[in-house]
């Protein structure tokens, strides 16, 4: 048994003057305060990576910088799936009694520390260095290839994808920390700058500065009662050229593992936190997991199904698409928001019922999948 006892989330966007360790520290301090814990209470530390501070030993660098002395610490890297994979590991370590209070933290000044080209080139390296990157491929291009095939097979239009960008933006309007807080329409998305067809600028998440942390503990240390009920992963390939399929990925298998550990049905889920690096990512994950029928995620978004007051509220902070994406912390913001929803602390964004939450993230090009089921007690 483990609990998400505290969360800390910085605003995302342009945060000049703050380096990776600053953003990690800010989020970590907030998470510890939220969990009513002191630094000395932290006996486990899990870190991710930072493309702007690619240190070989980020965890012990943070141990020294932040002032910790854990009995267990290291980094974990599975791209966008890292945040939920760290939560799974923290849960497993707590259950195995390796540690009592595990601080999980990530942050990166991905936007201000480098040029846009540098960010695009760094991220493109998740592709194959000999067979893909030399072709001028980028992360949007890898996902655009997937989009072209998936849309072809399931009759999805660019306007369908745009519905998800509009929804994430509508959600972000209610969060003061979101990077983008101007309403957009489907027409705006369709008219935005082409990046890699069918994806346009507003189909893509931004590059952001930001930091996120949470604490996974053996018992609640504050009024928050959020249990991790189950977790799962699936890993099927790295490169889009080598993916077994461009329409079936590891998401369903990963979620099924998490659900069976948790002993909950998909129909029990009241709030969803789903990775949304691109509108096509969110579309595929929602549909493969079974939260929307094939080809209908956009229609469901349009019809209010995923609204704050809808049947299944989704990424109420605005997701990667509008809250922002600072690397490993990106998906962790989904978890931080979910924990606030589950403890009734989401303010203007509060949903009626977030008693059972499903979280799912992917890294690479839908390569690496990690899922969690949380329950509010």
């Amino acid at each position, binding site marked *: 048994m483990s609990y998400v006892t505290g969360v800390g989330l910085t605003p995302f966007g342009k945060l000049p003057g703050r380096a990776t360790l600053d953003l990690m520290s800010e989020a970590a301090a907030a998470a510890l305060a939220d969990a009513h814990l002191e630094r000395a209470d932290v006996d486990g530390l899990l870190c991710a990576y930072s493309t702007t501070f690619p240190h070989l030993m980020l965890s012990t660098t943070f141990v020294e910088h932040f002032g910790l002395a854990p009995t267990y610490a290291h980094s974990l890297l599975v791209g966008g799936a890292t945040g939920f994979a760290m939560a799974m590991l923290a849960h497993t370590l707590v259950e195995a009694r390796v540690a009592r209070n595990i601080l999980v933290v990530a942050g990166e000044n991905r936007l201000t520390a480098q040029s846009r080209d540098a960010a*695009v*080139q760094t991220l493109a390296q998740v592709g194959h260095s000999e067979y893909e990157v*030399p*072709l001028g491929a980028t992360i949007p291009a890898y996902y655009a*290839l997937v989009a072209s095939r998936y849309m072809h097979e399931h009759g999805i239009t660019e306007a369908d994808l745009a519905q998800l960008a509009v929804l994430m933006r509508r959600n972000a309007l209610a969060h003061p920390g979101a990077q983008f807080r101007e309403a957009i329409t489907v027409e705006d998305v369709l008219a935005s700058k*082409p990046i890699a067809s069918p*994806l346009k600028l507003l189909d893509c998440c931004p590059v952001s500065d930001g930091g996120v942390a949470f604490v996974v503990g053996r018992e609640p240390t504050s009024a928050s009662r959020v249990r991790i009920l189950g977790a799962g992963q699936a890993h099927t390939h790295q490169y*889009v050229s080598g993916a077994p399929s*461009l329409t079936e990925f590891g998401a369903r298998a990963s979620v099924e593992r998490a659900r069976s550990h948790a002993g909950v049905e998909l129909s029990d889920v009241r709030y969803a936190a789903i990775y949304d690096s691109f509108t096509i990512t969110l579309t595929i994950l929602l549909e493969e997991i079974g939260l929307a029928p094939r080809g209908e995620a956009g229609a469901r978004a349009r019809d209010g199904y995923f609204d704050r007051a809808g049947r299944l509220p989704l990424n109420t902070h605005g997701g990667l698409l509008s809250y922002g994406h600072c690397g490993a912390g990106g998906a962790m913001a989904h978890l931080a928001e979910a924990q606030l929803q589950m403890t009734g602390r989401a303010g203007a964004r509060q949903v009626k019922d977030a008693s059972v939450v499903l979280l799912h993230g992917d890294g690479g090009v839908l390569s690496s999948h990690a899922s969690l089921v949380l329950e509010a007690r």
Partner: protein
Amino acid sequence: MTQGAVLDWTAGGAGIAFQSCRACSHTWYFRRGFCPRCGANPPAEHQASGLGTVHAATLVTRAPSEELRAHAPYLIVLVDADEGFRLMAHGAHDLRIGARVRCRFVPFGDRLIPFFDPA
């Protein structure tokens, strides 16, 4: 089998190389010293015909670097080669999913890359 004389664009040659397993017949693209399905080694090396079918396509407008911006927009395709493996390449802008294609080699950045035209 064409071992020893295989042209491979990732090594500067005007050709597409692929491998297959001598034990289980599995076929794949990314070069390695063993079969990723059964582990047998060494694999057989082959030269692809350059014929295939478009599986996915995207027109890239936003190039990753100043050097490649001169080439944009360019079409990136995933092609299912007739020999049974999938590869990433460039292609004519009007290629659609399902199109039959044939490969030639064109300069891009600092190298030759595979480029598919309608067959």
